[in-house]
């Protein structure tokens, strides 16, 4: 149900939706379902709403009604309004830096350490991390918490099952990452699906958590949140970064997407840049 990657964009792109209608949608969601999309980036949020209306063939009024009254529709809506396109070992150069520089630096001071994947989506980065740690021989010395606001996508992450056709790109990324094995050592193919080795998830716990409304729930040595905050406006990025700051141990690492930046945020001075190309930051002040 969530795999219609093709969208008939050509007639979609010409449609428009008023900002006031987008605001009505976010208000309705906030009242009825306790999620807050008010501070999501306008351009992509608008595209997602138009896409949902198009996929389900809905007018605005119908969309309002379904959001108000149909909980199963809302679960699907939540999955579709957030962007769940991800890859294993996306940006191989980043994963090399993580393996060769960042993790060894953490291991200098810790025998075991804790990782938070914030906004883990369908889990590709969680599996990438687990594979990397396994190849480093330290998978059992880590505990990983992977969170997302969307329970349907968390189920998919837990199942570790991906369309087999996605593995071509994942394999290419893994080769560029220069892992010590071969990615197909970690999955089997059945009925057009790649099924990941579940033992990779032994120290992983998946949890529902919304970065916008959720509380701080633990402290970590490393937080990964790549290409998640690009869907937020600057105000919300600021708020979420404060939460990340509080959720990190002093000298813990925060990693965001390669085209995101901390420099505009209020608490930028509490971090130093460890690697600017791959956007690795280190918390230096409480």
């Amino acid at each position, binding site marked *: 149900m969530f795999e219609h*990657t093709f*969208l008939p*964009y*050509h007639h979609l*792109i*010409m449609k*428009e939706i008023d900002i006031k209608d987008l605001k009505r949608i976010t208000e309705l969601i906030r009242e009825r379902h306790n999620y807050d999309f008010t501070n999501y*980036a*306008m*351009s*992509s949020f608008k*595209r997602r709403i138009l896409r949902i209306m198009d996929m389900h063939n809905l007018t605005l009024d119908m969309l309002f009604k379904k959001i108000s009254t149909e909980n199963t529709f809302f679960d699907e809506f939540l999955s579709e309004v957030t*962007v769940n*396109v*991800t890859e294993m070992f*996306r*940006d*191989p*150069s980043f994963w090399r830096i993580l393996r060769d520089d960042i993790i060894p630096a953490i291991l200098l001071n810790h025998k075991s350490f804790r990782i938070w994947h914030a906004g883990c989506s369908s889990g590709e980065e969680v599996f990438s991390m687990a594979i990397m740690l396994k190849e480093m021989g330290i998978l059992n010395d880590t505990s990983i918490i992977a969170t997302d606001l969307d329970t349907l996508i968390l189920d998919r992450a837990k199942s570790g099952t991906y369309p087999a056709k996605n593995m071509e790109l994942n394999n*290419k*990324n893994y080769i*560029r990452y220069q892992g010590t094995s071969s990615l197909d050592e970690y999955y089997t193919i059945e009925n057009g699906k790649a099924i990941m080795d579940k033992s990779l998830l032994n120290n992983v716990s998946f949890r529902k958590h919304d970065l916008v409304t959720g509380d701080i729930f633990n402290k970590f040595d490393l937080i990964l949140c790549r*290409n998640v*905050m*690009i*869907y937020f*406006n*600057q105000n919300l*990025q600021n708020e979420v970064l404060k939460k990340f700051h509080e959720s990190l141990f002093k000298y813990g690492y925060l990693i965001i*997407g*390669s*085209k*995101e*930046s901390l420099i*505009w945020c209020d608490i930028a001075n509490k971090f130093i840049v460890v690697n600017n190309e791959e956007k690795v930051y280190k918390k230096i002040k409480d």
Partner: protein
Amino acid sequence: MDKYNLNNKYKAIVIGGSAGSFQGVTKILSNMPEDFKLPIILCLHRLKHVRNGFVEALSIKSQLEITEPHDKEHIKKSRVYLAPANYHLSIELGHTFSLSTENMVNNSRPAIDITLNTAAYVYRNKLIGILLSGANKDGAMGMEHINQRGGRTIVQDPIECMIDTMPTAALAVTEIDHVLKVDDIIKFLIELNNAYK
């Protein structure tokens, strides 16, 4: 000589291109003065996994500073912005960029339609859209959107294009204000810049 009847209302230029557009883009950029009065936003199809090298290649002959924007970066004049590899590039109200990893559109990420469409929404009739050589139809709908919002549209003359699918597709779906060779696109932009003096 005001051939194109331009004034200083325009706020941004967006250029889309794909196969065969690199030469045209570098030629255009190399002919822009360093005090060019508008931002130039480039959405060019590129290899998804090659993050580095494109900005450097475009910069060789350009007097304008070329960068790949960060998410939520403010758009400034006299600057050239290139959509980064493997991200869609959108313009937000308030004149900042947004990046996204949504599904490919027209088999492309970055997709020209997304950049043109969001720019048309934000800049309305104060936008100039230019579509160069390319081998698919990405950008055609974006040009239509610019047209509907009252902006000015230019395509590279198909006769001059290495692959003319892209400008031809735009000409098929919407009215294009100017069909120009690269040298004339340069003259157009110089005349535009002079309107700000």
